[in-house]
């Protein structure tokens, strides 16, 4: 199957700090993401995962290098264009859900579509469809504070998916969830990916979560150390990820 390039990262460098006291958090990252990929980036805490994701999702700017999304360099776009890009091409899942507590789950899910000017009925239909897929059908009228963490995060996933974005960025989506809730979310994401509906880039420090991906990259000390691709079962994949971690001796907690 021929798949097209969605994101192309070239020699990405990010420094933090004032001049003379800079630390280089990302030290030249290269990565290409194709349509319908499910990539996990793994690394210990402080290795620069969030930083990388922030740059990819245009919330932050890199010091050097370029990020091509859909063939356009996002580091060179104006604020207005970036907003549109985030709105139309990118979906986000945050570690702490970030649902709006002012509105019901359904309104939260439908929000990006409504903002895009899609007709109300269509928004409603799509929201319900996604909620069904994520097992949230009975919770649509609830407000975020009435939902469990897992339900909130699945809701956030629905919100990320509703506009049919080219790529989903997820920053430790299971980080705040217990293992059952985390598993439910990952299962749902995997299903969407397998149906060919989503390209996912997930960042995590947790090998179990990473084992849901097709490819896992290990980020350590601001550089990509290796890539592990899934061959057989998820169990086998998980064991291989663990082995790699141990062999690298990193502190993955």
């Amino acid at each position, binding site marked *: 199957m021929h798949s097209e390039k969605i994101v192309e990262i070239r020699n990405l460098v990010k420094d933090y700090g004032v001049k003379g006291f800079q630390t280089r958090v990302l030290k030249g990252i290269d990565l290409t993401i194709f349509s319908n990929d499910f990539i996990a980036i793994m690394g210990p805490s402080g290795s620069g995962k969030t930083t990388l994701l922030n740059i990819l999702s245009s919330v932050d700017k890199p010091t050097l290098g370029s990020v091509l999304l859909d063939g356009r360099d996002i580091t060179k776009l104006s604020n*207005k264009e970036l907003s549109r890009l985030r*709105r139309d091409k990118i979906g986000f899942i945050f570690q702490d859900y*970030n649902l709006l507590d002012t509105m019901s789950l*359904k*309104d939260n899910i439908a929000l*990006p579509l409504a*903002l895009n000017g899609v007709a109300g009925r269509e*928004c409603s239909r799509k929201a319900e469809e996604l909620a069904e897929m994520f097992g949230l059908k009975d919770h649509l009228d609830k407000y975020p504070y009435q939902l469990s963490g897992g339900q909130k995060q699945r809701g956030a996933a629905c919100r990320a998916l509703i506009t049919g974005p080219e790529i989903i960025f997820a920053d430790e989506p299971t980080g705040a969830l217990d293992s059952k809730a985390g598993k439910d979310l990952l299962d749902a994401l995997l299903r969407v990916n397998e149906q060919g509906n989503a390209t996912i880039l997930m960042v995590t420090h947790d090998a179990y979560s990473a084992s849901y991906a097709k490819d896992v990259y290990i980020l350590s000390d601001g550089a990509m150390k290796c890539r592990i691709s899934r061959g057989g079962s998820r169990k086998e994949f998980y064991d291989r990820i663990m082995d790699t971690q141990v062999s690298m001796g990193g502190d993955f907690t």
Partner: protein
Amino acid sequence: MSITRLALQNFRKSVSTYLSLILSLAFTIMIIYNFQCIVFSDLFDTLEEPNKGYINVIIEVITVVLVFFLLFFIWYSTNVFLTRRKREIGIYVFMGLSNQRIGKLYAVETLFIGAAALVLGLGVGALLTQLFQMILLALSDISVDLHFQIALEPVLITTGIYVAVYTLFIIKGYVNIVRSSVLNMISASRRNEYVRENRLLLVGKAVLGVAILSTGFYLAVRAGGVEVIESLLAAVVLVIMGVYLLFGGFLPLLFQGFVKNKAVLYRGERTLWINNVVYRMRKNYRTYAMTCVLMLCSVTALATSFAMRNRYDNIVRFRRTYTFQILSDVPGSQEQLAGLIGRDNNILYESCVELLSLDASLVDTQFNYGNYMIVPYSQVASLAEDAGLEPLFREPAEDEVIGLSHVVLLSFITDRSDITYTINGRVLREIHDTDEPYLGYLQEIGNYLVVNDRFYDELKPLGWSVMYVYSFGIEDPENFAASKDELDAFVSAERAQGHYTGCVTIDPHDKTADWIKVLYSLCIFVFMVFVLASGSILFMKLYNDAFEERGRYKVLQKIGCSERRLRRAVSRELGCTYALPFAVMAGSAFFSVHALERLMSENLMTVYGVSVLIVLAFFLVFYRASVRLYYKNAGI
């Protein structure tokens, strides 16, 4: 660097928490203090009954509204503060502090804030009073020179009221903290304002609100006799309650309807701001209601001041119709008098009218005012022509009268239909009541009835005393004193012959109508205070809300909601916040001005329109400013 930034951010956050409470409290103190300053100023020194009585009624009405305002504003601001602080000091629970100690911590904290607010409020209040005074002076040639000394009573009374109410809310906060669970304390900010209420309850509230409001309006505009004073006070209380219920019932109902109807809701930014309005409704409907009531007061005060101004001009014009009026039982003196006055002044117009003076016991009527003067129609008609006044309504038939009254400031007797007089055994119906100054100043101090000539001739031979009124308007009223000696000599000469003769001279610099200026100034002052109060409530509320929005807007920006759209959503939400109370106010003010119309028996609809527009202009300014501030505080 990030630590410094964090510390700075923390500091700014808590400063804004403290500051918003201090400012709200100081503001309340300021308003109360300003009002007390008026009550204790020399403004009312010149007043006499019954005007003093009228003013007292008005002051009572304002006091009722201000007490509501005070309670509400302190309740609101301490509540916001409590929820914010609970989250922060709730952390101490984990350090092993008991709820009681945390409660004490809160009480001491609020005590200091309260004291700071008191000092600030009184200080700024004193300055503001001076400022208002200057505005008042600059505003109008007829306003009174107000002298606000920094007297002790207003300070003491203001402090007393404030301390009493504030202590109440400190205790309430303390009890609240002592009683709350750990979880509740930490999550205080999350759930304080919730959201969907029972539909039936809302419908009930809305219906009750409309009913109470309508009753209030009815009481306000109902015509009646002396009981009008009580029904006006009742109307004020009912309107406040009705507005409150309307905002508590109808508004949530409406907006919850929007939220339910997704086809309406999911349209651009609408889902953002309508959900926000609903989210805050529970907390905010009281704010809307309060603002609405305050605005209603300010519009009514402004309309009253306009009306007072008109009325003052009219009263002065009424009095100045003639400069000299001689009342005598001697007929045919007009030419002689004209000659006397003509020596020092140019006469513009003159008239003479014959009238019968009746003892009060001979006239029977609903409102008995004292002695009555009966004037034949033909005499008044020719007088009107001579003096260039409006012609009379029409010739009364033999069983009809026309009353000649004067311009009054207000009359609580608003029902003037079905008035009859029984004179000499005949029942006469009043067909009209005019305040055209046919008899000038004399019309102001007596009761005059115009009757059909034939009926007059019937009454005349019955032997009641006949009087003549000679009136003169001169070219230069300022020069009235020049003719004084001749007229005085004339009067004493006639009196010496045993006649009843008197002379009225109108001094254009006369001060007896000045008390109306007092009212005028009071109304303008009250208007300024209330406009400021209502605008500031909304302003304060939005200021607080904006901080809570920060996090949400960050998320929205991350998911690709552009700054422009966020700003649009904010301006819609804020527009709604300002427009709702304004709309209800504009509707209610129609009735309050209508009530005023009846009290002053004058058409005030133009005044209504202008006043509402002026308040609208103020609100647009407030609106612009709060939108700006909101952008800034919410970080967009």
